């Protein structure tokens, strides 16, 4: 048996920085290199942490919440939340009690009832886009679409969507290029505003009180036999904001970049909308936005590497989904790919609670965009600007409509 490696072993050290703008365009190559040399690598950034890049290892972490706690899922440790984000930063058994309350709110059947409204929102935005020959897809669609859907779902004012996007961007990205301290500062300031807004919404609803939207259900929600506290409701809503906006934004934008650059693939979607469901799964695999962390609770050997209690480990879902031992042609986009057991929504207890909503949003957006705008292309003079962070995304995406390469 070969000797265990540990945090000091020179051959598994990496300078991987999940917030570095320098690798936003090349992160899958970076993951592939790490997977080849040291699939469980050690980075010195943010006080030192591990990075796993193999599908099987990431799944092993996700399925073992006793060893790999999600009590803190961010690197560095805070994005401005006041207390644990619920339910993602809660471990079993409490986690399961919260999920029993929240799962039905995002169930496939409840989401299916929203489809006409989601389709209307998509078409309103496309109407506005089509008034121009060139748009920034991020501002014109990718941001607005998930935030309007979120507000509709919550029963809140759709006009607050710009404010929501600003908060979500700030909390996810901090202040790009600034110091870690400065980024934490702006995140915390944005989070304070978010909590104040949520507080107002809760107070309003507590007074009027007869709606059947998610806000009302949460206010009336219970944890076993007691009512949820306002603190709990706030930290559930905070997670909805972080989980529901930037993720879909990035997924839409990455998909549109690929499809703009590959007109022959786009044409498949235009010609056969029946391909959309598998296309959505494939784009989720190919660009998986989310890279959470876990906290190691007891000494554990992962793929020959000794992790110690108290360590933190990053598990980029995009790295799992480009593992050539599961996907031999991982870097090829195949809209009919089967099987495709990707981990874009994670796995184990914390499987993304909004995954059914996200799929519906992506399916409707893919269908409507390609029905109404079969041709689009990038602007070679203004290429898209991507960003990394724990939710990979796109800052700007200038797009010519009605033209193809």
């Amino acid at each position, binding site marked *: 048996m070969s000797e265990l490696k540990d945090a000091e072993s020179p051959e598994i050290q990496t300078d991987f920085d999940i917030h570095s703008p320098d690798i936003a365009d090349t992160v899958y190559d970076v993951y592939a290199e790490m997977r080849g040399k040291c699939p469980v690598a050690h980075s010195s950034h943010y006080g030192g942490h591990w990075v796993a890049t193999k599908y099987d290892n990431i799944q092993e972490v996700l399925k073992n919440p006793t060893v790999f706690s999600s009590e803190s899922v961010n690197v560095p440790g805070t994005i401005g939340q006041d207390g644990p984000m619920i339910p993602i930063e809660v471990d079993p058994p409490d986690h399961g009690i919260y999920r029993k309350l929240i*799962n*039905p709110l995002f*169930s*496939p059947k409840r989401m299916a009832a929203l489809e006409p409204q989601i389709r209307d929102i998509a078409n309103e935005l496309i109407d506005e886009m089509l008034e121009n020959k060139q748009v920034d897809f991020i501002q014109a669609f990718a941001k607005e679409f998930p935030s309007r859907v979120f507000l509709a779902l919550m029963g809140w004012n759709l006009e607050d969507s710009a404010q929501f996007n600003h908060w979500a961007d700030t909390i996810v990205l901090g202040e790009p290029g600034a110091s870690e301290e400065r980024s934490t500062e702006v995140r915390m300031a944005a989070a304070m505003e978010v909590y104040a807004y949520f507080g107002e919404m809760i107070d309003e609803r507590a007074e009027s009180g007869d709606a059947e939207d998610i806000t009302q259900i949460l206010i009336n929600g219970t944890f076993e036999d007691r009512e949820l506290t306002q603190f709990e409701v706030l930290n559930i809503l905070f997670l909805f904001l972080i989980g529901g906006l930037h993720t879909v934004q990035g997924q839409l934008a990455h998909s549109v970049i690929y499809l703009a650059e590959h007109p022959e693939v786009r044409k498949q979607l235009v010609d056969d909308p029946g391909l959309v469901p598998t296309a959505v799964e494939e784009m989720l695999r190919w660009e998986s936005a989310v890279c959470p962390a876990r906290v190691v609770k007891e000494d554990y050997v992962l793929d020959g590497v000794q992790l110690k209690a108290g360590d933190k480990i990053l598990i980029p879902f995009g790295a799992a989904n480009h593992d050539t031992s599961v996907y031999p042609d991982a870097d090829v986009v195949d809209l009919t790919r089967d*099987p495709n*057991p990707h981990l874009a929504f994670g*796995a*184990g*207890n914390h499987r993304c609670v909004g995954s*059914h909503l996200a799929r519906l949003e992506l399916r409707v957006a893919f269908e409507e965009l390609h029905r109404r705008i079969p041709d689009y292309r990038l602007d070679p003079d203004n290429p898209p600007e991507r960003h990394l962070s724990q939710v990979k995304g796109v800052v700007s995406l200038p797009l010519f409509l009605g033209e193809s390469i």
Partner: protein
Amino acid sequence: MSQASIDRTICKGHGRCYMLAPAVFDADDEGFGVVIDEATTPGDVAALERAVNNCPERAIAFASSAATH
């Protein structure tokens, strides 16, 4: 003919099964998969096999009866 089963301790409600094989699986009120019928036609059996292979939790098993072989 194939009879599917879902290990409820492993299923985490991804929903791939009832999307791929709606004749065999449905969603419960929380979004977890439930088996609603046997796969009888070749098309349903193929869909069931896709569901098995696309499940990120590997929570689905199925047994084929000899009758169709």
